[in-house]
């Protein structure tokens, strides 16, 4: 007999050798096995077909800069001097409305004192964000001591926004500035390390000094 059952071998590659009913010579995968695999693969492909685009859609903002640059007018040049900060209210994302209003501190660039932030044209104005570099509470400028103080956990910053005490991990962020038709305009935010070197905008609590900076990657887009 041509297809007489071969010697039983549990480990055999062939269905015939494993004595599976209906197995024929040279068959290694049973029909049942093949159908299982097909069903699983089809289900997996169908799931991925909606899951991956959906996830990409939800995670898009990680890879894409969604906040457009907006230059906001904060007043005429005459309002500001180079010795003390003047508070102004602006909205980082204007579409948010009243809830998103935040204070910024504005002063003229002081040629004698201020360091030119590297890698850019000297900014005509120094605009300090009030978002504390610890966890983002609003800091307040105290003219008498020329310091910024955070109410939440006692972070203290000097006149340049450099850390003088408390938990903040880096100086206060700043904004780009320009002057158009005699009016001061404020643009995007940027971050500074302890040497007052410019970095892409980071979240509060993200280090950009020493070894710590490698734990807080920059956004791919900014």
């Amino acid at each position, binding site marked *: 007999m041509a297809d007489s059952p071969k010697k039983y071998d549990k480990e055999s590659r062939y269905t015939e050798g494993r004595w599976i009913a209906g197995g024929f010579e040279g068959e290694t995968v049973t029909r049942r096995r093949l159908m299982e695999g097909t069903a699983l693969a089809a289900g997996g492909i169908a799931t991925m077909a909606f899951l991956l685009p959906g996830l990409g859609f*939800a*995670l898009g*903002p*990680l890879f*894409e*800069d*969604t*906040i457009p640059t907006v230059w906001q007018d904060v007043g005429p040049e005459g309002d500001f001097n180079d010795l003390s900060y003047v508070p102004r209210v602006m909205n*980082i*994302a204007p*579409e*948010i*409305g*009243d*809830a*998103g209003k935040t204070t910024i501190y504005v002063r003229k660039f002081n040629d004698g004192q201020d360091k030119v932030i590297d890698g850019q044209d000297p900014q005509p104005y120094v605009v300090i964000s009030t*978002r504390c570099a610890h*966890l*983002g*509470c*609003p800091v307040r400028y105290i003219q008498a001591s020329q310091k910024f103080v955070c109410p*939440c956990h006692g972070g203290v910053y000097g006149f340049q926004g450099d850390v003088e005490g408390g938990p903040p991990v880096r100086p206060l962020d700043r904004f780009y500035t320009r002057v158009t038709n005699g009016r001061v305009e404020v643009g995007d*935010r940027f971050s500074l390390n302890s040497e007052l070197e410019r970095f892409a*905008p*980071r*979240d*509060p*609590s*993200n280090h950009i000094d020493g070894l710590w900076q490698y*734990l*807080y*990657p920059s*956004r791919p*887009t*900014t």
Partner: protein
Amino acid sequence: MTPPLPKSLRRSPSRPGQDDRNGKNGKNGRNGPATKPTAKEQAVEGTASVVGWLDERTGASPFLRGFLYRKVPKGTNWYYTLGTATMFAFLSQAVTGVFLAMYYEPDATRAYESASRITNEVFLGEFVRGMHKWGSTVMIILIFVHMGRVFFFGAYKYPRELNWVIGVVLLVLTLLMGLTGYLLPFDQRSFWATVVAVNLNSSGPIVGPYLADFLRVGSEFGPTTIARFYSLHMLLVPLLIAALIGAHLYLVAKLGTTAPPWLKAEKKDLLKEEV
């Protein structure tokens, strides 16, 4: 295996001599002539036949009996109701939340107005919003008290470790509900609290900044942030919570509850003489 039905739900054969009009002996039984069933009997019979129809087609009876009439250990007390209380707090949140969603608009320019409209203008709006707001606090208190009960009674021990793990995930999800819901009134407090909360997420090494970008939809709190929080708050997290509550309850019914730790096993109960 399946616990028996309680006595009140079991049908008992009629006593000898008692009038059996439409009972087990049938209409032509020996106990008397067939008479018209009363309205009450018809109602009972009708309900029983509907229940029977469903049971015959689903086989739900053994499952429900095991779930609802399972034995509980001696010493079971009011502390054992805390989990159910938490679940009812969740159900109340779900129901009030669905109704709030009928009036609320998750848009940066409309959110505050629609929320204050619910409070000030919609009929019973203040009450339903109040239930949702205070209910969230109640749920978080209850979940922690329930967790404390399980911890101090030692009810997390073998074989219930998995249920403890599921419970901890439920706790985290409930806190996430609190976090995402806090933004939705969209006043100054909720806005800045959310900014700080997202910054807290950002302080985690390596994944932190990405997590913050995911929550905020970008590097700054923008107009779409509120839609994302709304979607997490009313779709993703509640679905996960509901599914995990199902798993949690299944394990409770499967494994049974524990006796309170102050109760010692009584030996005389273990040796029961058959009479």
